[in-house]
C-alpha cells in the first residue's frame, strides 16, 4: 500500500509542475514584407482589436476625472473632434499650466514604433501614465484616478466583465491603448493612389510625391505611418536651434534626455505625416505655424536645400493628400 501511495504522490507532483507561460499578445499591426517605401494604413476593423476595450477606452479617454482637479481629459489636448491634437504651440495642462512640447496627434499613434517625441515609452500602454502624472498636464496619479473612477459602478462592472482583475492601473492603460490603436485614418487620397486608384491624386500632388522621394524626405518619413519608425537628428545640414532665436531648453535635447549619449543630442522620433495638413503647428516645439514654413524648414535643416515656391506648393499638395477618413471608432 505504501508503494501505491508513493506512486500516487509522484503522479500528483508531476501534475503540479507549472505550465509554460503564454506568449505576450502580438501587436495588432503586422507590417507587410514589401519593397515599397510606404504602405496604405489599415482601417481599425482590420486590426483585430477588442471592441469592448475600445469602447471602454473611448469613455476613459474623454473622462476629466483622470486629472487632479477634474477639468482635463486626454481628449483635452488630443481632440477627437479635430485631428487628434490641439492646434496649440505647446500642451496646456490643468489650471492653464503650459507644457514645453507640441502635443502629437493620437491618430495612427498605434503604428508608431515608440511613443513621445524622445521615444521614452515603448508602448501606448506605457505611455498612458506619462500625462496623468505630469504636473503641468493632468497632475494626478494612479491611486487618485483609481479611487475616483472606482466609485463609478458602470466602470467597475465594465472592467470586471473584460478582466478578472477588474480596474487597475494596467487594465486602465490597456483600455486607453486599445482605443488609441483604433484611431486609424484609412483611405486617404494617397492610400487610394497606392492601392492603384491613380486618379485619386491630381497632377500637383503626384509631382509632390515625386519630389518627396527625389529630394530624400522619404529616407526618414517612410513606412505605413510616413514616419514614426525611427529617430533622426534635427539640424543635419544647418543649426536649427541657433537660428530659432529661443534659448535651448531641456526638451530640445530630445533623446539625449533618455540615453545621455552625446550622439543623441537633438535627436527626436520622426513624426508621422498622416493628416499632417490638419495638425499645425509643427515640430517638437510647435514653432512652425503652417505647412509652408514647416516644409521650408525641413528642406533647409535636414536636406540643405532651398525649395522653389512651385516645389513647395507641390509638396504641400502631396502632404494634404495624406488626410485620411475619420477613425471608425469615432463615427
Amino acid at each position, binding site marked *: 500500500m505504501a508503494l501505491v501511495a508513493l506512486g500516487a504522490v509522484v503522479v500528483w507532483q508531476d501534475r503540479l509542475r507549472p505550465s509554460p507561460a503564454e506568449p505576450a499578445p502580438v501587436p495588432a499591426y503586422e507590417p507587410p514584407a514589401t519593397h515599397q517605401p510606404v504602405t496604405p494604413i489599415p482601417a481599425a476593423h482590420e486590426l483585430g482589436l477588442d471592441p469592448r476595450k475600445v469602447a471602454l477606452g473611448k469613455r476613459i479617454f474623454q473622462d476629466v476625472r483622470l486629472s487632479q482637479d477634474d477639468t482635463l481629459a486626454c481628449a483635452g489636448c488630443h481632440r477627437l473632434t479635430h485631428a487628434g491634437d490641439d492646434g496649440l504651440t505647446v500642451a496646456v495642462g490643468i489650471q492653464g499650466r503650459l507644457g514645453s512640447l507640441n502635443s502629437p496627434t493620437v491618430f495612427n499613434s498605434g503604428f508608431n514604433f515608440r511613443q513621445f517625441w524622445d521615444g521614452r515609452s515603448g508602448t501606448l500602454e506605457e505611455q498612458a501614465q506619462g500625462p496623468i502624472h505630469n504636473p503641468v498636464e493632468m497632475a494626478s496619479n494612479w491611486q487618485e484616478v483609481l479611487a475616483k473612477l472606482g466609485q463609478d459602478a458602470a466602470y467597475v462592472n465594465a472592467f470586471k466583465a473584460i478582466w478578472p482583475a477588474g480596474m487597475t492601473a494596467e487594465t486602465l492603460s490597456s483600455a486607453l491603448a486599445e482605443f488609441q490603436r483604433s484611431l486609424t485614418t484609412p483611405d486617404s487620397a494617397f492610400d487610394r493612389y497606392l492601392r492603384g486608384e491613380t486618379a485619386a491624386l491630381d497632377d500637383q500632388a503626384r509631382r509632390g510625391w515625386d519630389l518627396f522621394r527625389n529630394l530624400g524626405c522619404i529616407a526618414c518619413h517612410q513606412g505605413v505611418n510616413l514616419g514614426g*519608425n525611427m529617430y*533622426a537628428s534635427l539640424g543635419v545640414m544647418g543649426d536649427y536651434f541657433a537660428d530659432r532665436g529661443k534659448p535651448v531648453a531641456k526638451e530640445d535635447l530630445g533623446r539625449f534626455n533618455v540615453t545621455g549619449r552625446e550622439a543623441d543630442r537633438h535627436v527626436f522620433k520622426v513624426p508621422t505625416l498622416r493628416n499632417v495638413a490638419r495638425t499645425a503647428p509643427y515640430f517638437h516645439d510647435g514653432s512652425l505655424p503652417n505647412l509652408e514654413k514647416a516644409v521650408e524648414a525641413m528642406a533647409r535643416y535636414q536636406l*540643405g536645400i532651398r525649395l522653389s515656391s512651385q516645389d513647395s506648393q507641390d509638396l504641400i499638395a502631396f502632404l494634404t493628400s495624406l488626410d485620411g477618413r475619420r477613425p471608425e471608432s469615432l463615427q
Partner: protein
Amino acid sequence: MKHPSLDRSLLLWGGVALLALGLLWPGSRGQVEQQESLRARIEYLQFGESRFRELVISLRHGLVNNYDEANAWMARILQARAVVANELAGMPDLAPAWGTYETAVRNQSPVWEDFKSRNALVRNSLRYFQSDALNFSRRLPQQGRDAVVAQDLMVLSNALYLQALGEGREAGDTVARILVNEQDILARIPVALQPEFERLVRHARIIGTHSQDLATNMDALVHSPGRQALADLARQNHGLLIHTQSRAARYRLGLTGAVLTLALALAWVLNRYLENLRQSARTHRLAGVVFSNSQQGIIVTDVTGAIVQVNPAYCDITGYSASELVGQNPRILSSGLQGKAFYQSMWRSLEETGRWQGELKNRRKSGDLYVQWVNIDAVVTPEGERLYVGIVTDISELVHTREKLASLAYYDTLTGLPNRVLFQDRLRQAMVHAKREHQAMALVFCDLDNFKVVNDSLGHAAGDELLQVVSSRLRQAVRESDTVARLGGDEFAIILADAKGPEEVARMAGHLIHLLSRPCQIQGAEITSGASLGITFYPNDAQSEEELLKNADVAMYRAKERGRNDFQFFTGEMASVVAETLRIENGLRQAIDSRQLFLHYQPQVRSDGRIVGMEALMRWMSPELGQVSPARFIPVAEKSGLIGALGEFALREACRQCALWRTRLDPDLRMAVNLSAAQFRHEGLANQVEAMLHAFSLPGSALELEITESVVMEDVAWGQEVLRRLKALGCRLAIDDFGTGYSSLAYLKRFQVDVLKLDKSFVDGLGTDAVDNAEDTAVAQAVISLASSLRLEVVAEGVETAEQLACLTRLAGKDGFISQGYYYAPPVAPDQFEATYRRLAAGDVQN
C-alpha cells in the same frame, strides 16, 4: 497452495505497476513537450533573426526602403525572447548559451536605432553629393590652375562612393586628405559658387563621419554573436530532446512488457484461484477480496454470454456500473471494429481449448474507443455451472504509444497525415485494388496558393498552423477509405479509391476548393488560403505510379496558371507538354554527339576601335524541333543533368576556337563564355577550366567567364570560393546582365570581378528621345561610374546604333568601354568570323 502469500504477491504486483506508471510515464512526457515547444520557439527566433539580418542588408543597399518590417521583427524577437526566458527557467544546461543570446539581443536594439538614422543620413548625403558634385564640377573652369579643383572633386566623389559602399579605410584617408584642404580649395572657387561648395563639403563630411560607423553598425547587426548562440541553443536542446525521447521510448517499451507480464501473471493467479473455488471456502472469500480489489477488470459470464458479475475495475474501464452490466451481453461494449470472423474464431478457441487471449477494441459508455488485452478462461463452478472469466487490461495508452512510435516513420509529425512513404504504399495498394475490382481511382494533387506569403509574412509558426487547419479540413472532406497525405511543404495528395467518375470527382474537387478558400484564424489574423488541384485517373490516364504522379503534378500547375483556386483534370493536351519537355530532353541527349549543337561568336570592340575578343553563344539546330532557343533548352538541360555535358562542350569548343584565332588573328584575343547556374554550383568547375586551358595551351587571361549576379548571390560563401579558384587560374570574371538583378555592390570588389556587362535593356533607350531615355542614361552612367571607381571594365551589350555608341562614349569619358552588338556585327558562325574580324579591323563598321 498458500493463499495468504498469493494475496500479498498480488498487492505487490499492483504496487510495482503503479509505481512504474507514476515514476516513468508522465514525467518524461512533460519534458518532451517542454523541449518540443522550446525547439519551436528557438526556430522562430532563428527565422526572425535571419529575416531581420536580410532586411538590414537590403535596407543598407536600398533594396528595401521601409523600416516597418524590420522594426516589427525586432519587436517580435524581443517578445519571443521573454517567453523563452520563462520556459528556460527549469533547464540549467541551456543557461550559458541563452545568456549569450540575451546579451546579444539587448545590445542589438540601440545599434539598430543608430543604423536606421545613419542609413537615412548616408543614403541621402551620398545621393546629393553625387549629383551636386557632378553639376558643380561642370561649372568649374576645366583648364588651367583651377582644373585641380575639378580633379579633386572627382577623386573625392569616387572615394566617398567607395567608402559608403563599405570599402573602408583607404577611401576614408582620401576623404580626410582632401577635406583638410577645404579652405585652400574654397579660395580658388568663384565667390558665387562658394555656398554650393560648402554644402557639398557638408555632405562629404556626413558621409565621411557616418559611413564607417554605419558599416560597423551593420556588421554588428549582421554578425551578431546572438546567431551563433541561438544555433548552440538549438543544438543543445535538440540533444536533450533526443535523449529524453529515446529514454521515454525505452521506458514505454519496458512498461509495455511489465504490464503485459502483470496481466499474464494475474490471469495465471486467478486461474489457479478459480480452480480452487470448489475446494476451499476460505479460498472463496479470498477470491472475493482479489476480485473487488484487482486493478485488472474481471468479468464473468455464463455460457450464453450473459454477464453474471463484474468487478469495480471493470466498471472503471467501461464506464458502466455493475447493475447496468449484469444480465447484459458484453456485445453492448462492442465497437463494431472487429468483424464477425473475429468473434467466431474467439468462440471456437474457447470451446476447443477453454481459453482465448488477445486484443479487443471496445467502446466505453462515453462512446470513447479503448483497447483492452483480454484473457478468457472457461471454468466450471463446484455446482457444475460453466462460466467464462475474462481478465481485462486497458492498454489504450500503450497502443497509442505503439502507434505513435510507428507513425514517426509513416506519418507527418506536423499534421498527423500519412507522409510520402506511406502515401506511395497506399497508392500502390489503391492501384492494385482498382485493377482487381475493375474500378477507377483518382489521384488529386493539392497545392496551397499563398502558403509562401503566409510563411514569409507571419512566420513559420503561422505557416505550420495553416497546414494543420488545411489537413483537418481535407481529412474531414473525404471518406474514411480515402487517403489524404502530405507530400512535403504545402503539397498534399488525395487518393480517392473507387472514384465513380469525373462528375463525382469534380464535385468533390469543387467542395475541397470551397473548404480551403474559407478564411481561418491564424495567430489572430484572418487568413484565406486558396488551393489549386490537379486530378488524374487510374487506369485511364496512366499505368504506372510515376506517370500518375507526374500527370497530377502537371494538371495542378495548369490549375495554378489558370488563376489559382481552381482544379484541372489531366488531359491529353497536357500529356503533350510533358512529352514536349521529354522531346527536348531526349533531343539534347543526341544533340551533342550528332553535332547539332554549335557555337556562334560575337565580336567585342573597345571604344578605340580595337577588337578585344568575342562572346561564344550556344545554338541548337534540331532535326525534329528546328532551331531551339537557349532560353528553352538550357532550363531543361539544367533539370535533367545534361548541362554538365553541354557546358563542357561549349567550354572546349570555345577554347579550341580561341586558340586558333589567337594564332591567326591576334595573340591577345579573349573568349567570353557563359556559365550556367548548375555549372557554377558544380564542384569540379575550376578543375575543368584548368584542364581546358591546358589542353589548348591557353593562358587563363584568354578566357572570360560570365555569370549572372543572382547565381553568385545564391550562396555567397560558395560563390566567393569558386571565383577565387577561377581567378587563381588567371581567368577574367564578368558579371552578366548587370543591373537587372539584385546586386550587392559591396560584394563586387570582394569577388574580384573584372568586367561588368551592361544589360541590353539599358542600352536600348540610350541616345533616343524615348521616355525612359533619362532613366537608362542614369543607369548606364551609374554602372560606368561604379566600374570606374572599382577599376572594372564595362561591356555594353546590344549596341545597335551610332547614337547609342556616341552616348556611351560620352558617359564613359577617358576610361573607355567595350561594345558588343549589331552595330558592329551579329553573332556569326566560326567560318564567317574571320571575315567579320578583318572588316572591323579595317575600320568598316557598316555591316
